[in-house]
């Protein structure tokens, strides 16, 4: 998101995302944590595991410590920690928590469908 793509590109990206196979898409993820708390550590470990399992080779995960760089908190609209932001593919999505609920993350990342049919909501 450093350079905002023009609208046509956006639309194109969306169309691509819809038609092209999910494997070809590249995921840009940011995980914001606050220092070395147990929550932070848990979240980092878990999201890495999910990415390795489901997005191997096509993800770009960056872990940011907002206690080191507090300006980010305001610019990225972070209020809860840990927060995972899916920057790409669009739409933007936020996940808060220690990433222990893998199904919800997969659902939110649009990964569930490609792997298997979604489990019944219980």
């Amino acid at each position: 998101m450093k350079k905002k793509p023009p609208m046509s590109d956006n639309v194109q990206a969306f169309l691509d995302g819809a038609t092209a196979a999910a494997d070809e898409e590249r995921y840009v993820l940011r995980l914001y944590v606050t220092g070395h708390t147990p929550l932070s550590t848990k979240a980092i470990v878990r999201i890495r595991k999910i990415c390795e399992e489901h997005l191997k080779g096509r993800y770009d995960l960056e872990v940011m410590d907002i206690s080191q760089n507090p300006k980010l908190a305001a610019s990225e609209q972070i209020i809860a920690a840990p927060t995972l932001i899916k920057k790409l593919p669009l739409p933007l999505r936020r996940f808060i928590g220690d990433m222990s609920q893998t199904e919800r993350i997969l659902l939110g990342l649009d990964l569930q469908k490609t792997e298997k049919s979604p489990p019944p909501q219980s």
Partner: protein
Amino acid sequence: MKRKKYTAPEDVTLPKTPTGIEGLDEITGGGLPTGRPTLICGGAGCGKTLLAMEFLMRGAMLYDEPGVYMMFEESAAELAANVRSLGFKVEALVARKKIVLDHVHIERNEFEETGEYNLDGLFIRLGHAIDSIGAKRVVLDTLEALFSGLPNHSVLRAELRRLFRWLKDRGVTAIVTGERGEAGLTRYGLEEYVADCVIVLDHRVEGQISTRRLRVLKYRGTTHGMNEYPFIITANGISVMPITSLRLDHPAGVQRVSTGVPRLDEMLGGKGVFRGSSVLVSGSPGTGKSSLAAKFVETACRRGERALLFAYEESATQIMRNMRSIGIDLETWVKKGLLEIHASRPTLQGLEQHLVMMHDMVCAFRPAVVAVDPISNLTLEDTEAAVKPTLMRLIDFLKQKQVTAVFTSLTSGSGAASSPEDSQVGVSSLMDVWLLMRNNEFNGERNRTLYVLKARGMHHSNQVREFVLTAAGIDLLDVCVLDDRVLTGSARATQEAHLAAAAELRGQGHQHRQRQLASKRKAVDAKIAAMRAEVDAEEEEMNLAIKQELMQENTMRQNATSMAASRGELGNKHNLSQGKP
């Protein structure tokens, strides 16, 4: 006295941060509790955001205390635009690093909860904002947005508790706003976290007129005003009217000021009313109340004092035109800046807000004389019970400021039919001087009369006077009394003519009697003269008779002599003369 001594140290030990908002610091006895959060709650549109913003702005401008404004609902640009209309230039202060605006954007659909979390992000964000400018003041407007944004309320509540603890540890004076809820003070029970100071704002509509009110519900560890105080949002921000009638210690001067009508001054002990006293002029329609008030105001201007006229019936130009017809020139003084006429509709706002506005105008203009024409219109929509305390506040305030005040009051009914003493708005007991004006209908015409119903602390006339408006101005005339009835107007003129005629008649009677006496005297004189003439005539006659007798005697004697001589001898003459032998 003993109690006072106990409460005084408490006030000292609890440090307070002045808000800089007019009136609020007086109610709270110095401001909000320093280093603690204060909850401001109220319904939609009652001024929470504005109050919070003014707290920050004043802090930055007046007390050199930078502040952080964290908003959850509006964006920074929106907020800046909103408060700009009220005279606050936020951007300038932001540029000078006095204020930080931080918009926390929360969109419910964006969040996906994936396990345990906390609000460290918010803490870090706030902490960074505070550190970046060394903020002493923080506003969170409004935290409740978090409740709609974050689904897990139990986590949120735990985090909010931590947030308030954290704010206290940081030592910032914070304002937290909250929307009024149905059950509690706020929709999500924020009041349970903020235990130190709670201010409730209210926006009530009574009789189609809305009034904003403020109340300090709770202020731990200090005394504060308990009442509901009306406030208005003006071009200069919020203004709370803290006029409490708790104290009654206004100074009472002995200086007297003229009412502008010499005969009226004469009725009031010859010198007019006391400076700083309140005068009520009541009467039925068309009795000349406004004219009297205008005269009072004009006289003050003539003395070189400032005067303020609140008109609720006529526009400023209309007043000036109408008063010119009775020889009162207000326009000159308006142009000179000594007189300010403030005309507005009474239905513009509630009574309280009118009073707050008057309070502000009096503070700004600092007049020596204030006229309110009329107060009865202000009370149009309110119940009488509500009117008295609010008017009492105004009167108290004016007395504190040593402002001489004239209030006109319209009494219902035609004066003669109903007792005008009954139809007051319950303020007469607060007034020092009460002039009653009535229309007397008699003999096919109405005439104005005036009398002094009461005048505290001065000798005053008990006489009814006829109130006359002419092109030359206002005058009072003595009334005529006939058979226990007060005569005015043409009846008075007739009676006066009648009396004059009677006096003339009486005068003529006197003259007549005098003339009669004179002629009688003349007659007597004539009579005396006649009698005297008679006596004189008699005397003359008598003298004549005596003379004749003497002449006869002489003649006889001569005859005898001559006869003797003729008889012979001259010698005998001697014999005869020596006596007859």
